[in-house]
């Protein structure tokens, strides 16, 4: 019984991290049609940001989150303005370009900080944990879960309750007519890319106490996040959240019952079978046109 509750709990906390990475990916793909292969490196930058702030300035990870969000968001903004915006009508080239950007970012970090693993301590007030239904739930994992639910709510608010969100949704549906009504698609694209990158950065910073920080840490996470986006279907926050939960739980359970490798193989097989029958994902956004 305890072991079950424990796996469910680990699955949820895994899902929370995936959710933040996946929302960034989904919002960038949904708005600009860009498959951002540098997303994993944005996660990694966020992790190094948290590490740097802690080792150099003794800043707690909780305090570093907004700084990391802004800095990685700025990196995303610069990448969009300098490179991505020139490639909007060439989808294949954006894949190559973002892949290249990812390699450059990764190597830059390796050159500056070296490739050895770095560790970040969790904040003192989040040490320890609670006993829930007989299983141990660490405070830090609980914090991650609530924080990512908060970011999901903030993203929903941004999209559906602010003027920027209205402009963003309008550009997604009809770029040309949006421009005819005073909306600068260029500006919307750059800010959206920055927001997605910033979310990835936050996810990276949040996992630092749970994993070791290395230049390649983003890659495996972003693969799972892509699975989340594919399963959830583009254009629905609820879908992304539900599918993050599914992938997170499946990962936790399968690696518990079987082992990590077999678990991954089964998840990939599951996703392949799913998109064979529902290529639009489980929760596609449908509308009469």
């Amino acid at each position, binding site marked *: 019984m305890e072991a079950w509750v424990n796996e469910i709990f680990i699955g949820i906390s895994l899902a929370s991290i995936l959710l933040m990475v996946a929302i960034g990916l989904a919002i960038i793909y949904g708005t600009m049609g860009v498959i951002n292969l540098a997303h994993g490196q944005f996660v990694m930058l966020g992790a190094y940001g948290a590490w740097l702030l802690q080792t150099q300035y003794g800043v707690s990870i909780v305090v570093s989150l907004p700084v990391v969000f802004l800095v990685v968001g700025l990196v995303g903004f610069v990448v969009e303005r300098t490179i991505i915006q020139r490639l909007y009508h060439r989808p294949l080239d954006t894949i190559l370009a973002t892949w290249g950007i990812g390699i450059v970012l990764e190597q830059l970090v390796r050159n500056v900080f070296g490739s050895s693993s770095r560790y970040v301590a969790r904040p003192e007030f989040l040490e320890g944990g609670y006993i829930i239904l007989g299983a141990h739930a660490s405070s830090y994992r609980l914090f991650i879960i609530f924080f990512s639910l908060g970011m999901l709510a903030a993203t929903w608010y941004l999209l559906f309750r602010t*003027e920027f969100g*209205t*402009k963003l*949704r*309008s550009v997604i*549906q*009809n770029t*040309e*007519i*949006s*421009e*005819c*009504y*005073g*909306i*600068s698609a260029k500006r919307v694209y750059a800010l959206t890319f920055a927001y997605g990158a910033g979310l990835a950065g936050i996810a990276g910073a949040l996992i630092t106490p749970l994993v070791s920080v290395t230049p390649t840490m983003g890659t495996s996470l972003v693969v799972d996040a892509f699975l989340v986006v594919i399963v959830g279907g583009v254009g629905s926050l609820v879908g992304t959240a539900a599918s993050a939960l599914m992938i997170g739980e499946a990962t936790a359970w399968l690696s518990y019952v079987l082992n990590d490798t077999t678990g991954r193989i089964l998840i990939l097989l599951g996703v392949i079978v799913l998109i064979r029958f529902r290529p639009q994902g489980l929760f596609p*956004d449908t*509308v*009469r*046109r």
Partner: protein
Amino acid sequence: MLEAQALYSYYGKSPILQDVDFSVEEGGFLGIVGRNGVGKTTLLRTIMGLTDRAAGSLLFQGENLLGMRTPQRAGAGIAYIPQGREVIPRFTVRENLLMGTFPRKDGARTIPEHIFELFPILADFIDRRGGDLSGGQQQQLAIGRALAMDPKVLLLDEPTEGIQPNIVQQLEDVMRRLNKEMGLTIVLVEQNTRFVRQTADHFVLLDKGRVAMRGRGEELTNEVVDRYLAL
């Protein structure tokens, strides 16, 4: 107020409009007629900056439009109601109207009341999605959205195409009221020459991307129609 001289407009390398001249004075009503595919829609799109490239002179209230990007042209007070209406399908009527206020210079985000007087149906359907409205209702919404920016000139592209006759009548009345009573400048692309003859001050007849004829509204006689517009 809106004046083009030797205007050329291109998609890729092909010039769609060639050496086009026209002008509309403040409060004027210009009808643009011609067969299908002669560049009428392209003319409106050129005014909004939606073609690949344009050359020549295009002035709006003395300002050079060709140097402005599309959102700036909207900000200058040009409202475009495209063919096929293009309301945002997943937006409610309210959001579609709100979107119309985005170009406003004064930053106001309130939907002007007179829009609901012109089109009471929009008030009834305020929370329905644009994509769920009928064609005629969408056209009313598209005009309402344009009026929400408090525009100086309205560009309409075949607003009555494919719309049931009773709504066509209403739309024609609205265009007449906007122009004659409220003094709004209108540029209308229209296949319906009867309405242009009755309502427009002037017309421009396009053929193969050039101006084939121009004149006062009542000069768009049946002989002209037979000569240039009959199939």
